């Protein structure tokens, strides 16, 4: 068990270091079946960039730091330097005087269905739930993502979103693999895939799986049925790992490969779960089978168990004020994110919504106000962790993006004011140093194939 865990850690490291197009070049042993671990590799390459120095900005670095009258230097698609007025522009650099406006890391939405539930919301394009069995770990969200979803462009232009996780829906207990994307327009999903980001496994607790299958008189019909199917499925995964270890010629099973990836620590569990008591059960189930939950999503009752989440080192991804739309959201409170944060746990603002993703910064502002009224004063630079660093951490990409630290990807937003104000919008958005949105330049505004030739084509939206 211990050596298995070590091996998992080592291969996760290799996966993390391995960028796009980097295939495992081990020589196959005679008789062994060579499994392509990365059959749909990212083809994303950063777009062209020029060295850019943003000066005279209020910099929120995404890890709790703030620099007034600060500078951020972007070179070769990376953050080169972050500091004060002393940072000089290299030869030929574009110099932007931010005029006191704010610079932040790009916003990362850990919970999106853009592309798998795109606009227009017609049945022909609804590809988020393989609701044919409660355990469908074999499906991969990337095989559903429609890159022409107009929602990606709105998320960039209005929300400053530079990376996002696309998840399968929550009809199933095991919804399938998620995919982490860079928010760059592309003809193919491979052209959006975040190079080297670990995969996630979408799991779901609660009302949705038991409703979807219970209505068909199938298991699970109850919450105890949910957990029973979960546990049986993990037992199968353990069995599969033992078989593969013993006999590498064992027939491959796509679903069990994904589950084995979780048990080896290579694939991160992203668990839809509203209620406190259910999250506590999932934490025990994770211990039982030796995996870790990266984040609970829609964790509406996280505030009731913020201490347990802190101690288990599990993030909670939450809405600011969604309340009461279903029974398991009935105990939602507006201070949820603030209380989770205040307990020392990892708090994330997420959307699960093609409109909400355009305003995650505003959602964080709601939290700051409600926190203040209950006596918790949280600094804006600290709150920005909810929008970039913490989601990056729960996605396994925090070493590469999510904050403005030298060497990290230059995923950056220049806002036209204080991003916690409702009156503020992105002025420019860079992804890997490439300027992909400029409010002042209609040519820096992506228009999806779907919207081309339609009324309102190229509108500011």
């Amino acid at each position, binding site marked *: 068990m211990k050596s298995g865990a070590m091996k998992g850690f080592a291969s996760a490291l290799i996966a993390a270091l391995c960028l796009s197009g980097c295939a495992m070049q081990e020589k196959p042993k005679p008789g062994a079946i060579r499994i392509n671990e990365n059959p749909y590799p990212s083809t994303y390459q950063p777009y062209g960039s020029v060295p850019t120095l943003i000066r005279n900005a209020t910099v929120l670095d995404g890890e709790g730091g703030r620099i007034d009258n600060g500078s951020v230097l972007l070179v070769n698609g990376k953050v080169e330097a972050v500091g004060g007025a002393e940072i000089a522009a290299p030869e030929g650099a574009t110099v932007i005087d931010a005029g006191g406006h704010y610079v932040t890391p790009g916003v990362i939405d850990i919970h999106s269905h853009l592309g798998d539930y795109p*606009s*227009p*919301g*017609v049945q022909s394009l609804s590809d988020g739930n393989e609701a044919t069995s409660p355990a469908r770990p074999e499906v991969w969200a990337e095989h559903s993502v429609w890159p022409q979803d*107009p*929602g990606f462009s*709105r998320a960039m232009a*209005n929300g400053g979103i530079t990376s996002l996780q696309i998840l399968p829906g929550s009809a199933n207990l095991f919804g399938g693999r998620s995919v982490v994307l860079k928010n760059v327009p592309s003809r193919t999903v491979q052209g959006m895939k975040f190079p080297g980001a670990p995969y996630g496994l979408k799991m779901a607790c609660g*009302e949705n799986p038991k409703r979807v299958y219970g209505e068909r008189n199938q298991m699970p019909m109850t919450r105890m049925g949910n957990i029973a199917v979960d546990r049986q499925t993990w037992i199968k995964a353990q069995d599969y790992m033992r078989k593969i270890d013993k006999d590498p010629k064992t027939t491959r099973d796509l679903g069990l490969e994904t589950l084995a990836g979780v048990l080896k620590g290579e694939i991160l569990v992203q668990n839809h779960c509203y209620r406190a008591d259910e999250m506590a059960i999932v934490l025990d189930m994770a211990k039982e089978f030796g995996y870790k939950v990266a984040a609970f999503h829609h964790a509406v009752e996280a*505030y*009731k*168990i*913020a*201490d347990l989440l802190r101690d288990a080192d599990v993030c909670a991804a939450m809405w600011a*004020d*969604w*309340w*009461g*739309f*279903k*029974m398991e959201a*009935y*105990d*939602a*409170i*507006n*201070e949820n994110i603030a*209380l989770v944060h205040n*307990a020392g746990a990892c708090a994330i603002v997420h959307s699960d919504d*093609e*409109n909400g993703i*355009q*305003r995650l910064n*505003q959602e964080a*502002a*709601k939290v*700051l*106000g*409600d926190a*203040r*009224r*209950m006596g918790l004063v949280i600094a804006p630079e600290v709150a920005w962790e909810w929008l970039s660093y913490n989601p990056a951490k729960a996605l396994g990409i925090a070493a590469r993006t999510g904050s403005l630290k030298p060497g990290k990807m230059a995923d950056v937003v220049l806002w*036209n*004011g204080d991003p*916690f*104000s*409702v*009156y*503020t*919008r992105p002025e420019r958005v860079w992804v890997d140093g490439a300027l992909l949105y400029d*409010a002042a330049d*209609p040519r820096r505004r992506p228009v999806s194939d*779907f*919207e081309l030739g*339609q*009324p*309102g084509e190229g*509108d*500011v*939206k």
Partner: protein
Amino acid sequence: MKRLLLVLAALLPASAAAQTVAIVNGRVAIGDGSPPVDHGTVLIRNGRIVAAGPSVAVPPDAQRIDAGGKWVTPGIVAGQSTLGLIEVEAVDRSNDVAAGGSPFSAAIDITPAVNAASSAIAINRARGTTRAIVVPAAAHYIFGGQGALVDTGSDREAVFAPRAFQFVELGETGAAQAGGTRAASFLFFRNAMLEARDYARNPSAYGGRATDDLLMRLDAAALVPVINGRIPLLVHVERASDILQVLDLRKDFPGLKLVLFGAQEGWLVADRIAAAHVPVLVSGLADLPAQFEDLAATQSNFGRLQRAGVQVALAEGGYASATRQAAGNLVALEKIPGAIGIDWNHALAAVTSGPAEAMGLGADFGSLRPGRRADVVIWDGDPLELESGPVLILIDGVQQSLETRQTKLRDRYRDLTASDLPPAYRR
């Protein structure tokens, strides 16, 4: 003992409504599109606004509330709401929005379904919403029924304007309800108007389902005030071509008092809407082609309609702060090249007096102009900023509680350190 209780009860809401209250030293925004003024006063008597502004004389007998320089505005009016009809949306038995199994449609009057004690009313009140347009869904035929206007006051009476309008679907949803096409939904509508006219001429001769009339007697009766323009007809349409078809309905039915609802492609035909003098309730945030009927959706819709001279207000669905959030975002658009936003003063009006005026009730509520219902909110910051929240709320001049199930849950769990009894004992 009994006598004492009665005296206490009388002291609370009734007397507060009857007395004279003056909110002084506020940054007062009237909500009619005029700019806010500092050191302003809002004078209230008998639950109505007497005066608001910079130079209002305060009678010596008035109860004074010092706003301490804070923002004072009319309460927010939710232009599209289900307040009082739903406790938990996905729990069918607690959701009274759509009556898909009813044989009735236009006759359905939501008034008996509105629950003043619903959690959603308290939660929206605590976020500064004091009134709402409550819209039933069309679930069986194209007509949703007779909507109402409600207040969010913590008393037993939520509905203050019952049967205030009729709701009809004439876009994609209407087509589906009418059998599958827009042609069928417009035909259904015309037929319904003709049958209502027949009913109005001679109710006792109306055949209803016994003959080939499609409408039940009560449905036909409910459409009489629509065809004669006594109540507005709230029409949900999004596509530009659908909007033009709806405007054309007045050629055959000149009495119709139309209000467009949705109208995401309204900006494409803004001049036609303006010329028809039809008010419009729109979303401020919708900017995606969610369906084929709103391909041209943009947040600039509101601003473009307003510039064309259309009477327009906000109707944002969604959560308790969504209305204010939409208004603030329209102001943000003013800084985006190519976008058309609105100024702050009109943004506040879009979520206060605007919806009231669209429904023809601007003289009754929605602003701090004299004679309006005294729905007043004091905020701890700019009311359109999302960090701001209400610190004091009056509805019909009565001070409201800001406590909700949510605040009680918050207070129960704000400190997770173990004590000698479980959290269930903390309240």
